[in-house]
């Protein structure tokens, strides 16, 4: 089943066509990668899906329904979560608080119950704290749970941001270059987390990544972009063999 579909999306900034009629479909349960050279329009696709940009033309369908006009927070409530290329954590807050914010859509505490604390609010805090702690254990970040996020090393911040997205309990997880700037070991950990999230938590993953080794290893299907246009889509082996892709992207590295 197709869970997320883009139909003929156009997006421009001034004279730049960031997306030039892009169509793609993501199937439920798969790991779908979007690759392409710098400035190809990958992040723009994510921003359209999560509602930060609204495309000039085209449709975005989530579970068959058009979501073009929904504000970002509503899309999050529907089960779309993401991480950002330039980490967008709440830097002054602790890891726990960042993850608790990820639980926002699943909590009910309001200005009254929150202010009273005793009763509903405390019970809810404890319940969701348990879920958050479970994610902390899963991502192996127990020892930094009370640290302010801004003080953490880059690789750990990326992991915390993944945790925050995971706390939303999403059906589709959009990850924008989760391995960027990481060493080999951190990259390997991250790949393992993504696979676990996909397999054990049944989360569909859409991944933007420059590390070709990882992409070819873990993705079910790959879409290649260049200058805002989709130049191919298919299984890793097909993409690797596609001369257009090699010219646009892989070739760049090998030359």
């Amino acid at each position: 089943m197709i869970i997320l579909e883009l139909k003929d999306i156009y997006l421009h900034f001034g004279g730049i066509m960031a997306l030039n009629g892009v169509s793609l479909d993501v199937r439920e349960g798969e790991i779908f990668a979007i690759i392409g050279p710098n400035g190809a329009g990958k992040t723009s696709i994510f921003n359209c899906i999560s509602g930060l940009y609204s495309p000039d033309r085209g449709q975005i369908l989530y579970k068959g329904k058009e979501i073009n006009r929904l504000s970002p927070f509503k899309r999050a409530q529907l089960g779309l979560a993401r991480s950002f290329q330039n980490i967008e954590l709440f830097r002054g807050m602790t890891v726990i608080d960042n993850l608790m914010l990820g639980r926002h859509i699943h909590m009910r505490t309001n200005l009254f119950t929150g202010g009273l604390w005793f009763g509903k609010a405390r019970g809810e805090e404890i319940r969701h704290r348990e879920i958050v702690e479970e994610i902390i254990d899963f991502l192996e970040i127990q020892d930094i749970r009370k640290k302010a996020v801004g003080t953490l090393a880059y690789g750990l911040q990326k992991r915390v941001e993944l945790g925050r997205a995971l706390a939303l309990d999403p059906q589709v997880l959009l990850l924008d270059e989760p391995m960027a700037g990481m060493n080999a070991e951190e990259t390997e950990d991250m790949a393992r987390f993504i696979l676990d999230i996909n397999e054990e938590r049944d989360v569909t993953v859409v991944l933007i990544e420059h590390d070709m080794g990882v992409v070819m290893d873990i993705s079910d299907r790959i879409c290649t972009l260049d200058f805002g246009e989709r130049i191919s889509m298919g299984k890793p082996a097909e993409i690797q063999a596609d001369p257009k892709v090699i010219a646009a992207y892989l070739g760049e590295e090998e030359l």
Partner: protein
Amino acid sequence: MSLQQSGIFHETYKEDMAIFQTPFIKFWMAAFMVLLILFPWINKPLNALVNTNTLYLMNLIGIYIIGAHGLNILTGFTGQISLGHGAFMGVGAYASAILTVKVGIPFWFALPLAGLITALVGMVFGIPSLRLKGLYLAIATMAAQFIIGYAMRNWSTLTGGSTGIVVSSPSFFGISLGDDRSYYYLVYTLVIATTLYTKNLTRTRPGRAFVAIRDRYLAAEVIGVNVWLYRILSFGISSFLVGIAGSLWAHYVLVVNDEAFGIWLSVQYLAMIIIGGMGSVLGGIYGAVFMTLLPILLRIPEHALTQIYPGVFAIFQSMTEGVFGLIIILFLIFEPDGLAARWHTIKNYWKLWPFSY
């Protein structure tokens, strides 16, 4: 000297979430509470020392603490500046005065209603915050300040124009709360209630959403926070608190007119939370204490000198104002994070003493 734990370990999340975490803190909190309760009975010597009615001062401080919590939620936690809180406090004061005097509702209903009315007014004037940020929002809220001020002066049928409205003291089951001492207990009951409310709010879901909006509103929206709603809610709850402060002020001073709620009061509120510590619940308390006490403390040397050289009174009066301004500027330069942050570093220093590097 008591030995302190080297670190805090908790068995359950419930313990981990408690506000007062160690027995040490609990003890000092209890001692402080006892002092707070006894204060109206032991303040006489203090009165003579500083040459003022300290109970009156305490009541003013308490009222400002409630208002400062309100502004702190909006500015410190949600990151939306307001230069209209002076006027919002006025809305609370007028609402309470009109409700009790003209409508004839008892104070105990007028108090929360004044808060709700102020919340509504605050939310309406908070609508620009959906589009404006920073300085632009400051200007927009300053417009609220002037519009409300204008209404207070000129909507005479409702507000009594420049003469204002004379208000009476509340009574509690037949006991009049018309003297400083009984009003003190009313004010501080509400100070404690609103302080706990603010603390709880800021450590649960709505408070986290506020801070998320302050720090990165786009990321907040993407993880599912309805940023528009929370921006307006923050204006609402913030104005509610300052409206309560206004109502308390009205029934203490007993006459409400527009002069008390000018732009100067808005600036003072901002100064309170900046000096006390934005985004810290204790910050509102420190700021209200500091801003109320400073002019009084500056008057002590002035008073002493005037008795020796009566002629210099005029000079000193203007000098204290200058010193007041200077101290605030020095604070902003040397303590940009506010008194609450300073207190925090001092506390940590002693926790680790003598290994405090």
